[in-house]
């Protein structure tokens, strides 16, 4: 038998990412997410076949898509910490010689690029379907849209993991309620507090916001939101002591 040793955080992250990736594609959740990713394409197709202006069709597609981009991380990452406790598998992980935060980083490393790739494909196709046969589409708009997608999805992932670590009983439900009700409500507040909204910043980065075009400010806001929620998750996972038999 080979002897063990201390495992660095980076190394543990890659091991857990491989483990998560394998489990992701053996589970059913990824197929549900794949079906969700087809919705923007469907909306763009239906909108394009009506008499709507391409920019309006694209705006509507992006608007609905934004919700889905928040929903996917909630499905796959909100329970990142909680599922280990529910299944009691944390007992295998926590007793091994690696830092606990690697469980979060490993899961994000496996899930987020997969979701981004899936939704980038769907998003790009929806963009060209929105503008089919019309002038005015340019690569810049698509790049802004994809940047909004990636940053928004990464931030939504951090929010979901943070919330899931705080409320481990119902992580997915709490994350969906937060992102689809509270976050949207915050985005509608007409003062600077709306910068705390993931969806508001995504719309600004995409270039589809009517008044604000402060892309850099929106990117910084998303990074700050991500950092805060990730710090919450790392703090919680470091301190968490879940009782299995009391």
């Amino acid at each position, binding site marked *: *038998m*080979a*002897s*063990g*040793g*201390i*495992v660095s955080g980076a190394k*543990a992250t890659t*091991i*857990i990412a*491989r*483990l998560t990736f*394998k*489990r992701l594609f*053996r*589970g059913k959740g990824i197929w549900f997410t794949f079906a969700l990713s087809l919705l923007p394409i469907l909306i763009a197709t239906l909108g394009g076949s009506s008499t709507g202006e391409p920019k309006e069709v694209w705006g509507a597609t992006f608007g609905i898509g934004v919700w889905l981009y928040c929903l996917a991380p909630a499905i796959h990452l909100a329970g990142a910490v909680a599922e280990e406790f529910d*299944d*009691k*598998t*944390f*007992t*295998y*992980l*926590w*007793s*091994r*010689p*690696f*830092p606990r935060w690697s469980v979060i980083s490993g899961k994000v490393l496996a899930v987020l690029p997969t979701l981004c790739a899936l939704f980038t494909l769907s998003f790009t196709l929806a963009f060209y379907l929105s503008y089919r046969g019309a002038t005015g589409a340019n690569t810049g708009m698509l790049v802004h849209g994809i940047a909004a997608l990636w940053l928004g999805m990464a931030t939504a992932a951090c929010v979901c993991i943070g919330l899931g670590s705080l409320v481990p009983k119902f992580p997915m439900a709490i994350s969906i309620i937060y992102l689809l009700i509270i976050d949207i409500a915050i985005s509608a507040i007409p003062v600077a507090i709306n910068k705390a909204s993931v969806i508001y910043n995504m719309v600004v980065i995409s270039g589809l916001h009517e008044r604000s075009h402060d892309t850099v400010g929106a990117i910084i806001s998303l990074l700050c939101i991500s950092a805060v929620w990730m710090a919450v998750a790392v703090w919680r996972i470091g301190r968490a*002591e879940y*009782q*299995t*038999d*009391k």
Partner: protein
Amino acid sequence: MSAPAIATQACSKWYGQVLGISDLTWSVTEGVVGLLGPNGAGKSTLMKLMTGLIRPSRGTIQIYGEPPHKSAGARRRIGYCPEHEGVYNDLTALEFVTFMAELSGVPGAKSRDAAAEAMAQMGMTKAQDRRLKGFSKGMRQRTKLASTIVHDPDVIVLDEPLTGVDPLARMAITDMIREFGKSGRIVVVSSHVLHEIEALTSEITLIHRGQILAEGNIYGIRSLIDKHPHRIEVECDRPRDLGSRLSATDHVQRLTFTDDKVVVETRDPDSCYDLIADVVLESDIVVQSLHSPDNNLSAVFEYLTSGRQI
């Protein structure tokens, strides 16, 4: 002098208002040690403290001089097999053990071989490529044990490893635990069943309500347990005749009668059982049932803790 493998010093753990363990000072330096106590005694809490899953509320716990909840160096030396059956059901047994090997610091290139070797040691080679979802309790237990030893730990912590497993698996696991002990590793194994522990080791620690009642050689503890007044209930057609014959002996301390039953309290249960058999045969008494309400660990613990303020 080197630090003991496991050492707790005035260690306490509360779960809110619920006591896990209380002011526990204990150490293990070698061999197989059985942690024995009824359900809820604090065995699992102590094991979780040993493996760094939880922190002490007060006092210290150290593995080779380092606190396991803080030190990856301490956790590197531990192999832990939890009581529950939770595993990653969508993985095959070999994948699961391989991942656990990697997470325990076995280099990637060697991890699969180490996992296969551990599975072979558990007699699981044939089933190692099947998903864990379809495994029986015994197969899961062996897979969990393989993941416990895959990184060749110095200290092996096994929480109720024999609970719910079939007799064949039980025998295999018992042999394996003895082998671990012979190979120079330190093994801490918990159970609430005395004879399970007796089959594994002669060194035991009795734990009850979060405190250590007794520790050391099982024969010493056995004699302590044997001092416990032992009740034998005999349901028969002539309880008073039986009682009068038994009362003439030294080891019978008290007799209690009901219409069809006599309860004998004795300090020498073996002799008392022999005597009852003799009297029944000689006097032609018809016995409907015979049992001992004290023939379980909880009763022994109640006796050992009577008069103690815990």
